[in-house]
């Protein structure tokens, strides 16, 4: 198909490679390497109750700016994070990417995720819709926003201290 060789096809391939790489870093608990993927103005957002609740007026499961992301990774790297001792075993599939450009040169991505988490004798399956705003940087990207819309974000949730 000729579309594969068009710039749009290349962008899509770059995005897919980036998402696969990010998923791999998270699943392997490579927190510092994962942090390197972020732009300094990045926002990591996991809403709850409603998918599009305004985070300025509503509580979120996670609403991390870059400084808090650093804290999150610092915590996960340190001794005494009991809820990740031992760490969750993680395996995720990210797919169904839809890639679109943006006026300011950023790339918008929508994708789906199925994540299986195993810890302490329990297996959990999470489904989520992902939304990314990616800023091109060299031959890769930096994450300006990652929004994780869990299907069960209005249900009582258990241990979510691993990265989504």
């Amino acid at each position, binding site marked *: 198909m000729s579309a594969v060789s068009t710039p749009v096809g290349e962008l899509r391939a770059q995005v897919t490679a980036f998402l696969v790489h990010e998923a791999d870093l998270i699943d392997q608990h490579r927190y510092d390497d994962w942090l390197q993927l972020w732009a300094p103005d990045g926002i990591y957002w*996991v809403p*709850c*109750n*409603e998918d599009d*609740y305004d*985070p*300025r*007026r*509503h*509580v*979120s*499961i*996670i*609403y991390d700016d870059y400084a*808090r992301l650093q*804290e*999150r990774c*610092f*915590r996960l790297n*340190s*001794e*005494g*994070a*009991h*809820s990740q001792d031992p760490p969750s075993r993680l395996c995720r599939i990210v797919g169904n990417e839809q890639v679109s450009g943006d006026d300011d040169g950023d790339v918008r991505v929508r994708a789906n995720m199925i994540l299986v988490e195993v810890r*302490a004798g329990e297996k959990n399956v999470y489904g989520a819709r992902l939304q990314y705003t990616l800023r091109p940087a060299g031959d890769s990207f930096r994450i300006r926003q990652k929004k994780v819309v869990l299907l069960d974000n*209005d*249900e*009582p*949730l*258990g*241990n*979510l*201290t691993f990265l*989504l």
Partner: protein
Amino acid sequence: MTVVDGQEVGYSSLVEEGRVHSAVFTDESIFEAELERIFYTYWVYLAHESEVPEPGDYCTKSIGRHSVVVARGTDGVVRAFFNRCRHRGTTVCRYERGNAEFFRCPYHGWTYSNRGTLIGVPFPSRYGPEFDKQNLGLVEVARLDHYRGFYFASLAGDGPSLVEHLGRTAEYIDMFLQASPMEQVELRAGAAKSNFHGNWKFVGMDGYHVNFTHKTVQDLQTRRTGNAESRKNNSDRAPNLTVDLGGGHCRLDLSLTDRVEIGKATSSLIGEIPDTEAGHRYLALMVERWGSEAEAYERIRGSRDVHVHVWPNLQLIGSEVRVIRPTSSGYTEVFGYPAMLAGVPDEINERRLRGYEWFNGVAGFGTPDDREIFERNQVGLQSDKEPWLVLSRGLTQAEVRDDGVVIGNITDEVTQRSQLRQWAKAMR
């Protein structure tokens, strides 16, 4: 009754002055008795008035296994009724919040007004003459009352009034509200809903665990502030206190090491006043309300230091209204509602939210470690060869004030003894 060492004993004998038997947390028949004797007898926290501000607003809550609709009728009155059609028992309300003029059962179309009255029954001619819609409204809880907007329900028709039940905790509800210049909070920011595989009574008050369970929080505080001061607040040498308020109510008093100042970072992020236009506007509003800057600071400090358990199912902690939802002896849900302050700049509440998520959030840096410990507790308690747990910390040193309030060091087990003494009384 339960069996201990081969003997049938009453539940209350499972709690002694300095120790508790682990069946209290693991025995499913005890849990069933708790529903009847505690949750279906005592006043339990249900909802906040700000969740149903307008006529027709409703929210669904639970009391033990009962699904309960809290609705403000078209007449402006707040009622609480069981979410159960009088016909065949179907829930009449499917959503957790909304606005409705009526609730219609999806099964056969029976329709109730938002005041709970049965107003429509399809094809009524087939019921006999004795069929009386007037007697078939949604069943209300026996008693519903509120204290400063906090609605409580009791399924027992008789008993102490709500104010009598709240006792000394009312003072801390008052303090909780005083960070708002209007002395009002609004639970309009949604809920952080979590669960854990452990007993509901683990969600208590414990000043001893902080440096261990929350080591990473202490590390993060040190990373922010460059010092390890916060660790000292939770030791046997700290001036902070554990307090038994009576009736199973208890609190931690963290105020003795806390100071509020505009622009000053706090270790908890709760109640920080930013050195911004909004921060100064907030402080000015508080000065206007409370008379002086010193008083304003004192109210903000007092509010953020509230750390009270209103027995059995409500806690007010910093910015959180925390509701405990018992489900079985080994499974509990906790709904945390960040309390937004009425009459303050939006930035202040936005900071409250981010501070809330930092520690208390479903994926925050504090509370998830508590839940992990609760789950490990529940596993450990299954091994009951030696079933008695130690609750004697500070027992002999505890100070009983003239008004009956019992005080101990922040690391003492005053609070646990307070709650289990009340538990034993209720379970007699």
